[in-house]
């Protein structure tokens, strides 16, 4: 059963990883991804990035994505934390952890989790520029393509 959190609070990668592996001796590898706010977007300086979401549906959608990863790769542990609200450059946005017997499963599950979070969980990013003005981030075809590669074989 994955640990799933959606909220404004920051996360502590070391503490989350320690909690995932504590007392376990069946884990051979832990894959991890942390997404952070960049200070530039399309050549413009960012003041902040605000993440809107769909309360209720979000937690459910993220939990299902995590469950899918747990099943596909027989994960021994899985954590997904996604922040919402206004975040400044350098801030953490998302944490994915996947623990498995072997590294291939841990790393594939990590990539899958972030690919599906980007395309199948109801979050929307709004950029706030240093020079003023805001802009909703457009979905990218390459993110859909990255998510789509998990549709078939599931490797």
């Amino acid at each position, binding site marked *: 059963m994955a640990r799933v959190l959606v909220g404004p609070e920051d996360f502590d990668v070391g503490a989350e990883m320690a909690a995932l592996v504590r007392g376990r001796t069946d884990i051979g590898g832990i894959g991890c991804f942390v997404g952070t706010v960049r200070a530039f977007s399309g050549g413009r300086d960012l003041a902040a990035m605000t993440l809107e979401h769909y309360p209720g*549906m979000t937690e459910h959608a993220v939990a299902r994505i995590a469950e899918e990863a747990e099943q596909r790769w027989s994960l021994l542990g899985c954590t997904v934390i996604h922040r919402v609200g206004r975040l400044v450059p350098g801030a953490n946005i998302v944490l994915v952890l996947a623990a498995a017997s072997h590294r291939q499963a841990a790393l594939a599950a990590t990539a899958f989790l972030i690919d599906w979070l980007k395309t199948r969980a109801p979050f929307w*990013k709004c950029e706030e520029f240093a020079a003023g003005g805001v802009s909703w981030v457009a979905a990218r075809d390459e993110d859909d393509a990255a998510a789509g590669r998990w549709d078939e074989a599931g490797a």
Partner: protein
Amino acid sequence: MTVPVRLLYFAWLRERLGTAEEEVTLPAGVDTVGALLAWQRARGPAAAEAFASATVRCAVNQEFANDSTPIASGDEVAFFPPVTGG
């Protein structure tokens, strides 16, 4: 034969419509997402423009939906742009 539903809007759709949420009663026959989108576009200029884009996505009762997804009394129906989290 009218259908009361709860409508939610997110991201730029929420901003363009100027509302995050409303309760409406749909006329008989508006019983799929496709029919509801057509109904939205006929509500007025702002709605027509907001729902003109083919990129508007929908969830019914917090599950991603498509044009043929049925809509029934009491449903929660959300409209939003393609997601961009992660």
